């Protein structure tokens, strides 16, 4: 009997001490960094994470879409590996071109889920809406870049291997994410307020209407991608026009990410401090679009685009007929008068994108607001979606629907919108203006608009005009959208109205990556190597993702 009581006592103390010990042991949360931040503390990091994906990958996409061409294919080992992209290849066994993938799943991915969950728990529906909006944006970027992506199984707990979905599943899925975003952004109950959202939102300062417009812009992009589908003219074109109308109304609605430029991590990736443009030179494609060759048929002085000195660099040698603006054709052997060239050729060297006549970076590792030009400055914004882009999408859709009047108005708005973009003076977080010197004067704009580069009537408008002006407006930031456009028209499709290439100045590479199996251009980027090719191979194999020439296969959206 006694023993029984003793045992009970022993058991009792054990249980009691176990219970109090549980409390004693409950110290497993990091006192040094929060484990349950407010959605407003996570959103700023997400906004900053968006440009990383696209700007990192721009070093490769920019070679596919001929925004850039390499200075030299051989000067350094980095250029040797980049050169493969100029030949529409890729770097096997490398994460090059995999940063949008990284940001979709890791950089933003799980964090956006957190913002959504936390927002729902705290009735901050505006944060929930923004979370869905960015989720839709990232998935759209990712599928544009990679084609099939992990969509339905993404972030599913307990999984280490994930099945892919192709675009026939992903695109409707993104559509639903957008609708979720819209429904949450439309709510004003709960803890929703401009001040609350503005705490984390340094792009739109908590303005939900602008976020709503951004979501519509994403929807416009989603349908604008699908011009090759049979339903485009009958259905999708209307969607593009409708969503475009609901989207940005002017340049002040533009979605652009600012940079503080106080240290490496908060400076523009393409600014002089971070010095990532060293190997890149402007392509002949953009030079010919701006100097009048492509759009007006000749580069006489009157045809030169006033945006040209704002956007690209001139060499010191002005005898080439367009004022010294030289571009390079892909795989042509790089800058014909590259570094090290002396004598007469020295003046023909093409300057780096951020400076006329500057070959070497004057301010590497030093913050400067004076060096650099256009989007290539330490403190210049990174645009993610602009009014001008929206107008060009509308123009293209209306044009395809044989509605030249609507198309023409949007086309003109798009061009003027890009001028306004360059001339913009107010930026979030006081970013640097994009123009160098003074803004482009109204008279120069008007004379350009009245000139040979711009079609003067709706009847004269061609698809080529729309797409090439869009190329100019998106040059230097819309790497993915531009590439999607080029792919939609198979890079070299002929505009029946002109009998010439839609993109007149697009030059086929003369050398192709060995695995392309001939002169086949790239249609998708392989998913991130160290995520998928190492750890998720079996899933890739299901749809032929392991093939050496996988990147040349047109994605679902490109196919009819």
């Amino acid at each position: 009997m006694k023993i029984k009581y003793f045992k009970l006592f022993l058991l009792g103390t054990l249980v009691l001490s176990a219970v109090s010990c549980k409390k004693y042991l409950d110290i497993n949360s990091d006192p040094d960094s929060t484990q349950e931040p407010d959605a407003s503390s996570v959103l700023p990091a997400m906004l900053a994470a968006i440009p990383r994906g696209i700007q990192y990958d721009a070093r490769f996409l920019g070679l596919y879409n001929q925004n850039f061409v390499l200075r030299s294919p051989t000067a350094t080992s980095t250029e040797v590996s980049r050169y493969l992209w100029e030949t529409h290849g890729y770097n096997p066994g490398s994460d090059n071109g995999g940063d949008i993938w990284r940001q979709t799943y890791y950089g933003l991915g799980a964090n956006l889920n957190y913002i959504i969950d936390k927002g729902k728990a705290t009735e901050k529906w505006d944060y929930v809406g923004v979370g869905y909006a960015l989720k839709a944006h990232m998935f759209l970027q990712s599928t544009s870049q990679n084609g099939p992506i992990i969509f339905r199984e993404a972030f599913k707990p307990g999984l280490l291997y994930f099945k892919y979905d192709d675009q026939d599943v992903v695109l409707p899925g993104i559509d639903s994410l957008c609708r979720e975003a819209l429904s949450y952004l439309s709510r004003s109950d709960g803890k929703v307020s401009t001040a609350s959202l503005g705490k984390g939102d340094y792009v739109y300062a908590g303005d939900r209407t602008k976020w709503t417009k951004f979501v519509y812009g994403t929807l416009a992009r989603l349908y604008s991608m699908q011009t090759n589908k049979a339903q485009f003219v009958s259905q999708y074109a209307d969607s593009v026009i409708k969503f475009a109308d609901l989207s940005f109304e002017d340049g002040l609605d533009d979605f652009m990410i600012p940079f503080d430029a106080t240290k490496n991590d908060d400076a523009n990736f393409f600014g002089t401090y971070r010095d990532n443009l060293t190997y890149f030179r402007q392509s002949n494609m953009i030079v010919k679009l701006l100097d009048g060759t492509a759009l007006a048929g000749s580069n006489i002085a009157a045809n030169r685009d006033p945006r040209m000195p704002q956007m690209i660099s001139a060499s010191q040698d002005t005898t080439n007929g367009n004022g010294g603006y030289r571009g390079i054709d892909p795989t042509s052997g790089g800058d014909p008068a590259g570094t090290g060239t002396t004598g007469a050729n020295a003046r023909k060297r093409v300057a780096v994108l951020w400076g006329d006549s500057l070959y070497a970076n004057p301010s590497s590792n030093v913050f400067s607001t004076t060096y650099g030009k256009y989007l290539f400055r330490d403190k210049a914004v990174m645009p993610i979606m602009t009014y001008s882009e929206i107008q060009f999408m509308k123009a293209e859709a209306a044009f395809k629907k044989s509605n030249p009047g609507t198309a023409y108005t949007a086309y003109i708005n798009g061009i003027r919108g890009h001028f306004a973009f360059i001339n913009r003076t107010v930026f979030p977080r006081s970013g640097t203006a994009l123009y160098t010197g003074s803004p482009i004067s109204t008279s120069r704009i008007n004379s350009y608009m009245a000139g040979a580069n711009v079609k003067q009537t709706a009847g004269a408008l061609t698809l080529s005009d729309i797409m090439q002006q869009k190329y100019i407006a998106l040059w230097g930031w819309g790497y993915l959208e531009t590439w999607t456009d080029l792919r939609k028209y198979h890079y070299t499709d002929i505009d029946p109205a002109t009998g010439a290439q839609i993109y007149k100045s697009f030059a086929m590479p003369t050398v192709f990556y060995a695995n392309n199996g001939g002169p086949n251009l790239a249609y998708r980027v392989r998913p991130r190597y160290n995520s998928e090719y190492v750890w998720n191979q079996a899933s890739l194999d299901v749809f032929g993702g392991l093939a050496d020439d996988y990147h040349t296969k047109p994605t679902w959206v490109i196919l009819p």
Partner: protein
Amino acid sequence: MRKILLLMLLSGLLVFCTRPGFAQQKSVSGTVLDTEDNSPLPDVTVTVKGTNLATKTNQQGFYTINAAKGQVLVFSFIGYSRREATVGDNNFVNVSLVQSDKDLGEVVVTAYGIKRDRKSLGYSPVEVKGEDIAQTKRDNFLNSLAGRVPGATITSTSGTPGASSQIILRGAVSIDGDNQPLFVVDGVPYDNQTLNQESLVPSSNPNAVGFANRNSDYGNRAMDINPDDIENVTILKGPEATALYGAAGASGVIIITTKKGAKGKGSLTYDNAFGFEKVYRFPEVQTIYGRGRNGVSDPTSSYYFGPKYDAGTELFDNFNSFLKTGMSQKHNLSLEGGSDVNTFRFSTGYTKRDGVIPTSSFERLSFRLTGSSKITPKLNVSATANYVNSVTDKVSKGTGSYFLTLLTWPKDDDVRNYLNSDGSRRILKGGNLLSETDNPFWDVNKNLAEDRTDRFSFNNTISYDVLKWLNLTSNIGADVYSTQGFYSTNPQSRYGAATGGFLNQYTQNTRNISGNVRTNIRKNFDKISNNLIIGFNFDDNRSRIESQRGEQFIEPDFLSINNVAPLTVASKTTVLNFRRVRWFGSYTAGYEKLLYVTLAGSIEGDSRLTSKFYQKSPYFKYGAASMAFNFTELNAFKNVEWLNGGKLRIGYSTTGKAPYSPYIIDYGFGSVITTGGGYALGVTGGNENLRPELTKQLEFGGEFSMFKNRLSLDVSYYRLRSQDQILAVRSSYGTGYVLKYINGGLVQNRGMEVVLKGTPITSKNLTWDVTVNYSFNRGRIISMPGDVPQFYNSDTWLYGNARSVAYAGGRLGNISTDDFRRNKNGDVLISTTTGLPLKAGAASFTNITGNREPKGSFGFINSITYKEFNLNFNIDVRIGGDIYNGNALYLYNLGLSKQTLNREDAVVVKGVLQDGLEDTDNPTVNTIAIQPAYRNDYYITNYIESEFIEKDINWVRLRDITLSYRLPKSLLKNQKVIRNASVFVTATDLFMLTNYSGADPNVSGLTGGARGYGGGGFDYGALANPRGISFGAKIQL
């Protein structure tokens, strides 16, 4: 059921109780003396062999026991040889005992300082005497265990003072966890952290300093122990012991007992040592070709593919200009004394070692006070307080370090000229500091780094004999230290140029408190001995690291965080707190001395398993069972003359291991420094379902003592199966993370440990004791967590594409590398344009080309005493195991390796051309001849790392040798001041015979804090262990 058990037990007891007594008993008495100084030995256990009759000697060494003529008395005492004496006609049996530790039947210190008869143990603890450790005169006592502990792999990071060392017992059980044992000093855990550089703020510029546990060593904190304070080290690897120390001891326990005061006349001991050291092993470089590439001279090049040095060019012996003779001094002073009631010991030790690299040094000052008091006959209290101050002045390591720049410094330039006359840096290769390697002198003099530790540890033991058979003991201890350190690069240095100078400073404050209470019940029922231990233990561990970084020095040579551009200052706080609680019990039942069975079990709670968001139990259970069968106690063996003792043992145990890091159950946000700041989830995803790692261990073996105990053998075989490995695996980013913590997989370690001890010679003047330790371990990964294809330790990716990779079916110590591209027949593919082989690229890093785990190792420990001379030496032999010679590859790439001297001979690389026919049945055999002297790609890019993995590396290393001479008693007897005096000379790492072509196969590419298998076997940029010699004297008053 329980009643039946009780009945069985009772009837068993009855049976044993009815054994008849021995006839013709008489009272035998005598005195037990120490042979050395004829002082009486108290507390010696005297037993009548074959019975459980026992007594102990009193303070005067006197005993009385009942025995009959012809019976054998056994005298045993810790630290002395067991001795037997037969009772004759005389009623007096006086014996003298010889100090020794080699016999069976002695008492060993086990968990929590509990002394147990060795016969009762179902496992085999290893003991190392403090004296053996101290005599090596090493700063870091871990290094003196090499060769002395079978089954221990000790890897030093480098040969510089204050370098960390890593010890792994019986193989790594965790693929990525901490595999180092727990250190316990006088019953209280002693922190052995090595600072993780991830806690520091890196530089703002990626071209400057990065922190990946490679460029600086932070020591392992167990090196704060003054080796001269160590009385004894017991190493527990087996089942019961680890079960008693809990999960913290899952990788073994190193129990250190410090010296205590002894009663009797007080004594003062002073000893010193003065030493010199020199590095005698260094990689070889060619001295024929000068700077340049493709045969063209270029003094600004880092490569040595230029033309031959002109005849008559003065070539400098830069190695010897740079490396100096290291010097060290050590002083120890101790004062001890005591009465029957109180004892005390105070010691102070000072060590200063200036290494072979200029500016490198280690300094330690230690004070220790130990006291004990018998407050009542039943109540014993002892306490120790220890203060240590350690200062390490460090030099760089790995890429860009003095070591590699010294190796590659142009032979036609005198390395000593590192400054211009105005004190600025002398530039060798032209303007760009980012590509100019630092002169080694510049590096060690201008890129300073230091760690200063102040450590206070305290422990207290209270022991109360409630009843004759019931003891209550508590231990409580605090281990508190603060380390202040900095790491800097000068604005004119290669890694400082990008940031205009870089300073990182940190303070680590660690405060660990632990305590336990336990009851120890010993009660014998006739022949059945019972020992029950029940206890409770807690640990509260806190570490906080505050780190600041600053850049752009205002005054280039002034090191202070106040001397940087204010906007460049960044700071970071890392807090690592965790707690543990544990209830444990252990029960040993013995039948006479014949058979012992031990059962042990623990319930442990670990804060690292709790979640802030989920209900999650922190508790897990594990236990052990073992049996010791002393078969020589059977009558059948009693008459076997040559066999004095024999034991067979078997044990099975389980141990859990909580996650190695706190805060990984829940997801963790990290603050980001991008525009707008804020928080983002870290690269590693938490997992609320994590369970502890579980290791199951089976061990069996035997101990045999023969030929009057002059030969003994101890053999153990073990198998460890560790499942539910906790690993942050890389997987598809579809998880939302780059890495994700998961449980799973199975790692198996099997091995054997053999200890053979003998006394080949024993005579009045000459004694020779020899111990041979042999052990091997085979670690294998049977399956990977989540079946991930591989897991690599990115820290081991030191140079070239070689790194440590774990994969199912592989070994834990794997090295995998790049490979050449091959056709279906395995022929190397050759480029049709260059004639050089094509590399496969990162895709083939799973190409396993090496296994760092040795096939076996031996230790030969000898002690020869001739009159007053003693010669003690320890030879360490390692067999097998592969080493990645990163230094050799580095030199090969740069054209400094002697392997590049054949550059003027045309070569046709063996292989087939990649011309489209390579996979057909008739591939085109390569015939393109190339002249490497003009085609340096041959050396720079067209190699694979596996060619630099040296297979089956063996070594024979004289770890230490000591010759000491004790002044004979006869010389001292005419005075009363000096009781003992001796002089000695010790040499460490005196020679090494190895088939390794590099400098030292026993260095590590990483610090001792590296997890998993660690950085051993990656030889890149680390200094070899120097050869040292020291001498000194010891005097006791």
